[in-house]
Each structure stands twice: as C-alpha cells, then as structure tokens.
C-alpha cells in the first residue's frame, strides 16, 4: 500500500504541474461562468418579481444554489477527461501503461484529482471578485450535519462524473469519433444534474424519476445538501443511491476496459 501511495503520489504531483500550465484557461473559464451567473440572476430575479417563493424557496436561496453550482463545476466536474482518454487510446499513448504496473483507472483518477485541485482553487478568484456584489443574496443553512453529509456527497459526485467520462473515453476502442456521444450525453447531464434549474422545481413525478438517475448525484445532490434544499433523511437515502451508482459505474468501466483491451491493436505509441 505505501508503495502504491508513493507511485500515485508522483502521478498526482505531475498532474498538478501539467494542469498549472492551463491556469489561464481555468481562470478565463471561471470568469465566463460569472457571465452565466449574471444571466441566472437577471432571469430568476425577474421571475421572482411579484412572488416571494418559487417551489418553496426564496430568491436568495435560488441565487445561492446557482453560485454553489459554479464552484462545484470546477471542484468536482469532469471537463474533458473523456476526450483525453479517447485520444490516448486512439494515438497509442495508452500502450505504455499496459507494460507498466499501473492501473489505468487509478492513474487517470489521480490526474483528474490534481486537475480539480487546480481548477477548484482558481474558480475561487472570480467568485471572490464578485463576492462583495452577491454577498447580500447568499444564504446558507447552519446545520452542521450538512457538512458531514455534503463532503461524502461531493466525493461520490466526483466519482460518478469521472467514471462516466472514463467509460465514454473507453468507447474510443470501438469508435473513431466519440465527441458526438459525449456532447449528446452532456446535454442530458447538464439538465438532469440541475445546472439549468434546481431539479425540485420539476413536476413531482419527474423529480422522483430524476432522483434515481446518476446525473442527479453529479451536481444537484451535493449542491442541494449544502444549500438546504434537502432534509436529513433524503440526504442519507441519496448517499446510498449514489454509492450504488458508483459501484455500477466501476463495474461497467472494468468490463469496457477488459473488452476494449481485447479489441486494442496498439497502433502508434
């Protein structure tokens, strides 16, 4: 175990360094997110004119939800991991990992973690810049259990997002082009993970269905815990469902990997 820690510890450090190269990209993306936040504030601000509550939540709670969501996107979101993995398979860079005592999934996840440490730290810059402006609109519930349940929800959310992206990347064993699949699933993901609107505003029947889909646990679930849109029992049930999804995605990733290796012809490299 310590040997494995040292091994992937080095991977993490290299991942940190190679992602620091993209610091400006992350920073610029962070500032673009502020523009999206402005769209949200304008639209929902107008929707709240004349009503005090939408779906049982005040305008401040809705703003807080969307602000937290932006931070989460940079802290636990999968950016282009699917594309990177697909590229490594296509141009044969993956061959070097087949010859070494390295688990490709763990290697990739370690790099993902390093990338999220960098982007997660950098998104704080634009958020701090606008903090004086939006501060009066933010309201967080004070319950300590939200922190205890929220952190595992974040970890599970990150695992679901990464493992799904990993599975999409592995499709490159069979298909030349995977971008189409990725972008199509991205639309479903954006909607069903609550990035367009808080999912509890859906009609109750649809909301119940959404709760059993993996997308719900990518962003909405941790954000809802932190911003007070979920009670304790719903949070505990959610953690169990999220863990089940993580386990299922692990299995799918493993099966795709083993089947993919059998198809792999190791071109290039």
């Amino acid at each position, binding site marked *: 175990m310590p040997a494995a820690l040292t091994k992937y510890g080095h991977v993490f450090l290299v991942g940190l360094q190679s992602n620091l190269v993209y610091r400006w*990209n992350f920073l*610029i*993306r962070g500032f*673009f997110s502020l*523009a*999206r936040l*402005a*769209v949200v504030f*304008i*639209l929902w*601000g*107008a*929707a*709240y*004119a*004349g*009503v005090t509550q*939408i*779906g049982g939540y005040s305008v401040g709670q809705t703003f807080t939800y969307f602000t937290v969501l932006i931070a989460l996107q940079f802290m636990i979101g999968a950016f282009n991991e699917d594309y990177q993995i697909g590229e490594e398979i296509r141009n044969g860079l993956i061959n070097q990992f087949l010859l070494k005592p390295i688990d490709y999934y763990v290697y990739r996840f370690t790099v993902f973690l390093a990338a999220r440490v960098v982007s997660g730290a950098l998104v704080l810059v634009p958020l701090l810049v606008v903090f004086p402006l939006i501060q009066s609109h933010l309201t967080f519930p004070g319950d300590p259990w939200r922190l205890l349940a929220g952190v595992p929800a974040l970890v599970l959310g990150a695992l679901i997002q990464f493992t799904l992206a990993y599975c999409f990347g592995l499709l490159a064993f069979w298909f030349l*082009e995977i971008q*189409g*699949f990725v*972008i*199509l699933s991205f*639309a*479903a993901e*954006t*909607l069903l993970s609550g990035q*367009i*609107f808080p999912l509890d*505003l*859906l*009609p109750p029947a649809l909301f119940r269905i959404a709760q059993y889909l993996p997308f719900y646990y990518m962003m909405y679930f941790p954000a809802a815990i932190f911003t007070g849109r979920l009670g304790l029992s719903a949070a505990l049930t959610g953690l169990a469902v999220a863990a089940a999804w993580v386990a299922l995605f692990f299995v799918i990733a493993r099966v795709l990997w083993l089947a993919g290796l059998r198809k792999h012809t190791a071109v290039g490299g």
Partner: protein
Amino acid sequence: MSLRQYLRIWLACLRYSLVRTLMFRFDFFLWSAVELAWMGVNVLLVEVIYRHTDSVAGWSKYEMLLLVGTSMLIQRLLMGFFWSNLFEMGRNVRTGYFDFYLAQPGNPLFMVSTRKLDPDGLANTFVAAGVVAYSAHRLGLHPGVGSVLLYAAMVGCGLVIHYSLFLITTSTTFWIIKTEGIEGSYFTIADFSRLPREAFRGFANVLMVYLLPAVVVSNVPAQTLIHGFQARYALWLAGVSVAWLALATLVFNRGLKRYASASS
C-alpha cells in the same frame, strides 16, 4: 468578380456541403440530435419557470417561448451558414493554412465565410421556427404576410449581428495567436439574448441592451411579432446591424494586414 460569380461559388459550396453530409449521414443525425437536445433544454427551462410564476418581466409564458424560439432561430442560422467557417478561420490563421483563402480570386471575407454549410444547423432552424409558430398560435396571433416578412427580415438582421459578433471574436486570432476557447465569449453574449429586455437593470442594462447588441437582436423581432411594428425599434435593430457589420469588417480587414502566414 461579379455578383453572379459569387452566387455560383456559393452554390458550389452548398452542393459540396450537401454531398459531404450524404457521405457522413450518421454525423448529420447525431449533431442534429445534439442541437435539438440543447433547444429542448431551453424550452424546458421556460416550462419549469412558468410552472411557478405567471409573468417574467411582463412576458407571459408563450411570449417568452416566442422570444426563446427567436433567439434559437437566429443562432441555428449562424450555426448552419457561418459557424464552422469562422471557427476554422481561427485555427487556419494559427497554422498558416489561411494562405489558401488569400490565394483565391475573390473577397477574402466572402471566401472565408461561405466555404461550408452545416445542414444539421439548418435542419434545426425548422424546429426553432416551429417553436416560434407554436407560441404565436398559443398567443392567438394571426400575422399577415407582411408581418411574417417583417419578422423574417428582422431575424435576418439578427443573423447579421451574430455573424458580426462571432467574426470579431475569431478575428482576435490575428493579434493573439493562442485563442482556443475564445468562442466561449460569443456563447456568453448569446446567452443574454434569451432574456427579455425589461429584466435588465442598472449596469447590465447599459452593457447588454445598449452597448452590446445581445438583447436587441432577439427582443425586437419577438416584440414586433407579438405587439406589432414600431418604427423606432425597427430602426434601432437595423442601425445596430449595420454598425456591427461595419465594425466587424473593419476588425477583420485590420487583422488581415497583420497576417504573416505561418505562425506556430
């Protein structure tokens, strides 16, 4: 070159694009589905918001849907006619492959902008137009031929404005070579065009409604269809289209002077 020759070139490009699409049929269906899914997301947002409130900045549900549909229509037209061309221009300037366009005997801006059409974007303009027509039907509007033509002309102005904005965005490649991801700034501005003008206050109002053409582009056509023709809005839209096209052409031509073939 005469106008007729340009038209023949454009028709040749159209034929080439269609043949390409027939070769990559699966891609056509996939990308159409992608765009359709994104439009569905925007329609659903309207649906969800109006489940909880009756009016947003004075716009009723179907008025809002008509606005969102108009904004999507303009964006699909940009995607269909110009997106890949201008997007690739940035890359070509970076690699030096842009030489190929300069060597052609025609106006460089025309050559750069019209080489390829994306039938998937164009296919989805019908879906967007369907959203507008459905909203108009639910609002009980019965626009005459004149109103429909006026609306179409205004959407045309909208296309000119979006084209200009995107051309300015990609033309920055002439100055700053590393501009990957710069198209994000176009999408950011376009996001604002799905919002009603009355929702903007203070600084956002000055910037997005008056300084940048983000809001006028969709609000004026939608408002005209809903409430009828108002000369000052129509003039505003027409003026903004001319001004931004002039600015974009200027920026492109200035950039062209800086172009030094292969860079990095």
